[in-house]
């Protein structure tokens, strides 16, 4: 065998109280698409940060084409031909595309030359992009193109991609894969991190699986079933959510002809939205991020007030009621952003349980807070949803994303809502936890609650929803029965590939 492009040998990194990576070793060959799999908190991000020079390993070494490789900072990693597309886009909203790209380069050429280079590379790889548009105005797919082109302009030997497809429409995913395959055929290696096992099976040559910071196995994805890979990640057999047959009751929530102007310059206006959801029904709302999801959640939860008649609960107008009044009536919501919207990061889990639970759980009496009962409530959530934390006194910030997500969803589910609105309930959550969250939503619906699930994860929506609608630039498509919808139909409902040409590769 020839010398691998990058060889990791016994990498170890410990943080206070947790070993993020424990003697991890594997090789990435030249021109290989290598998948890195693992649950949340398995140490994938720490590992790629070490490769990219953002974090220094405590122990172990890396070899780049047989030479010792110790990047002190990302600059050096880039100079050695390693580029990275981040999970949370590292872009600057107020700057334009060319400026964003220049910031990621060591010696950027003059702006005019750079713009020409951007056009050239974007056309070669089928990723059209206007260098002078402001990034804040771009869709998620276009933003990702900015990141990818930023990497490609540096002619990388190894491209690291951290969950690149989680925000793309199916058509955009297809184009991305064509781009990656073209890169691979040109000899670029790719380190690909994703939760989506089917993607890994179609794209990757080789996979390394991490669990609790350790390398627990390798496989050839195309010869391994998605279920087997998931079980290797989790280390136990996987429960798939089960949906019992349900009867739909009367209409629980009803929105008709709702239009709301954009709340901010980078927000989306809702345009003539119609929506009904019945008792016992799960309505899945798909769409690429930034097409009005946050705004729709705001209207449903009561953060954005509307005409009284625009939003109705059991036929009663509630458009002018705020979140607390709606909670009293049984309309609960769990927003997407965990830290800062769904939970207050620096407050304890008990305090966070109080924040949304006070009304329905009777945690507040005559203006006094009943902390004993609140702590019990928080402990109930922790137990019922298997939230891994030392106790309810811990700050929300200290939980990993998946654990905190289980907490914020559990907090609403346990309050026994009539209507539950969730946005991205399993964003960044590993397979086992995601399955548990989905199961809880299905159970809730089986008990007769109406559930509105806004998500960008189409597999998730197909798994749990009874009817499906898509948001596109603030408009909601007419809902359709979820069973039997094809990926192409969904893609079209979501607005296709946002003006993208299919790459001619």
């Amino acid at each position, binding site marked *: 065998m020839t010398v691998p492009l990058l060889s990791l040998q016994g990498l170890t990194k410990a943080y206070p109280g947790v070993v993020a990576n424990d003697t991890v070793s594997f090789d990435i060959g030249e021109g290989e698409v290598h998948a890195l799999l693992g649950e949340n908190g398995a140490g994938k991000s720490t590992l790629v*940060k070490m490769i990219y*020079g*953002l*974090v220094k390993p405590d122990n172990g070494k890396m070899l780049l084409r047989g030479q010792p490789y110790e990047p002190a*900072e*990302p*600059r050096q990693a*880039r100079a050695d031909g390693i580029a990275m597309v*981040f999970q949370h*886009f*590292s*872009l*600057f*909203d*107020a*700057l334009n595309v060319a*400026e964003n790209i*220049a*910031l*990621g380069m060591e010696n*950027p050429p003059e702006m005019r030359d750079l713009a020409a280079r951007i056009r050239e590379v974007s056309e070669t790889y089928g990723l059209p992009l206007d260098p002078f548009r402001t990034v804040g105005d771009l869709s998620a797919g276009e933003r990702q193109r900015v990141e990818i082109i930023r990497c490609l302009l540096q002619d990388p030997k190894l491209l690291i991609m951290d969950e690149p497809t989680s925000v793309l429409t199916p058509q955009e995913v297809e184009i991305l894969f064509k781009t990656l395959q073209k890169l691979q055929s040109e000899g670029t290696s790719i380190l690909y991190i994703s939760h989506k096992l089917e993607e890994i099976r179609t794209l990757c040559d080789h996979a390394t699986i991490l669990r609790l910071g350790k390398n627990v196995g390798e496989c050839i994805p195309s010869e391994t079933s998605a279920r087997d890979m998931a079980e290797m990640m989790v280390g136990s057999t996987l429960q798939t959510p089960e949906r019992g047959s349900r009867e739909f009751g009367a209409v629980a929530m009803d929105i008709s002809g709702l239009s709301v102007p954009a709340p*901010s*310059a*980078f927000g989306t206006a809702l345009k003539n939205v119609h929506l009904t959801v019945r008792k016992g029904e799960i309505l899945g709302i798909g769409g690429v991020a930034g097409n009005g999801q946050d705004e729709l959640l705001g209207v449903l939860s009561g953060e954005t007030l509307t005409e009284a008649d625009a939003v109705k609960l059991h036929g009663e107008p509630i458009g002018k009621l705020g979140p607390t009044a709606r909670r009293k009536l049984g309309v609960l919501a769990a927003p997407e952003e965990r830290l800062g919207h769904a939970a207050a990061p620096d407050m304890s889990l008990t305090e966070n349980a109080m924040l949304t639970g006070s009304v329905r759980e009777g945690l507040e009496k005559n203006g006094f807070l009943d902390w004993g009962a609140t702590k019990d409530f928080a402990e109930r959530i922790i137990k019922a949803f298997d939230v891994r934390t030392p106790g309810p006194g811990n700050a929300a910030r200290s939980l990993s994303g998946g654990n905190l997500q289980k907490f914020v969803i559990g907090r609403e589910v346990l309050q026994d809502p009539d209507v539950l609105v969730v946005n991205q309930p399993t964003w960044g959550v590993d397979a086992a936890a995601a399955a548990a969250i989905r199961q809880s939503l299905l159970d809730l619906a089986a008990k007769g609650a109406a559930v509105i699930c806004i998500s960008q994860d189409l597999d998730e929506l197909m798994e749990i929803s009874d009817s499906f609608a898509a948001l596109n630039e603030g408009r909601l498509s007419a809902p359709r029965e979820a069973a039997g919808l094809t990926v192409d139909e969904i893609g079209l409902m979501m607005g296709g590939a946002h003006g993208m040409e299919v790459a001619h590769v």
Partner: protein
Amino acid sequence: MDLSAINPVLLIASLMVAATPLLLAAIGELVVEKAGVLNLGVEGMMIVGAIAGFATAVESGSPFFGFIAAAIAGAALSILFAILTQFAQANQVASGLSLTLFGLGLSALMGQSYVGIKPPQMGDIHIPVLSDLPVVGPILFGHDIILYFGIALTAAVWWMLKYSRLGLVLRAVGENHDAAHALGYKVLKIRLLAIMFGGACAGLGGAYISLIRVPQWTEGMTAGIGWIALALVVFASWKPWRALLGAYLFGGVTVVQLNLQAAGVAIPVEYLAMSPYLITIIVLVILSADKSSAPASLGRNFHASR
């Protein structure tokens, strides 16, 4: 009432002088805020610059050394702010406010033995022919060197922010410090340098008041110019040329109202005295209709928690 006593040429020339301290402080704060830091201590840095410049000019006999000392003193005080906010992660608003209070007290202490002294004069430039032209001469070619420095600095900052690599990195840090860090830029170092630049500019602005505009030392003589500079940056939508426009407008109304007072116009003095603040703010509020231009990380502390 005798409006004919007001000479328009002298009026314009003196409005430029009145505007310069404000302009210098505002340009400095603009750079600081573009880097994502809100330093409310401008007033304190100005007054410390005013006394440090005054004292140095008196002791050395050279107003030029005075200005250098003022810039150093302003920057030194701003380093205190930088240590508190960037390294000790203190709240920026509270630290800035206390910096102002500290600066006012410190300057009063330093200035005790300088009350009532006249500082050495900074000569106006004199270019043969040009400076002797009627009207244009006194307006454009008859000022001190610091006034021209202020205009040049505005141009330089505008160019730097718009066209240079340094400006791009500075804006990036102010826009999204986490992303800038992920790309490998030294967020704290860039912010420290921006804060020091802001401090030096505020110090220069303060010394301009005590050495040229007034010129003498009295306690609290900056009289809120630092606060106006802060407001100016916001209402100028973080754009250098608009800050210049706002500063000249403020200076202009200040000079006009003084002249009107002297001419005995029948408007109560209080209304005249408040007019520069009022008019500047009204005009800039109208100009700053696009609110989205504030740096997104403004006032947020950065900590590389990885």
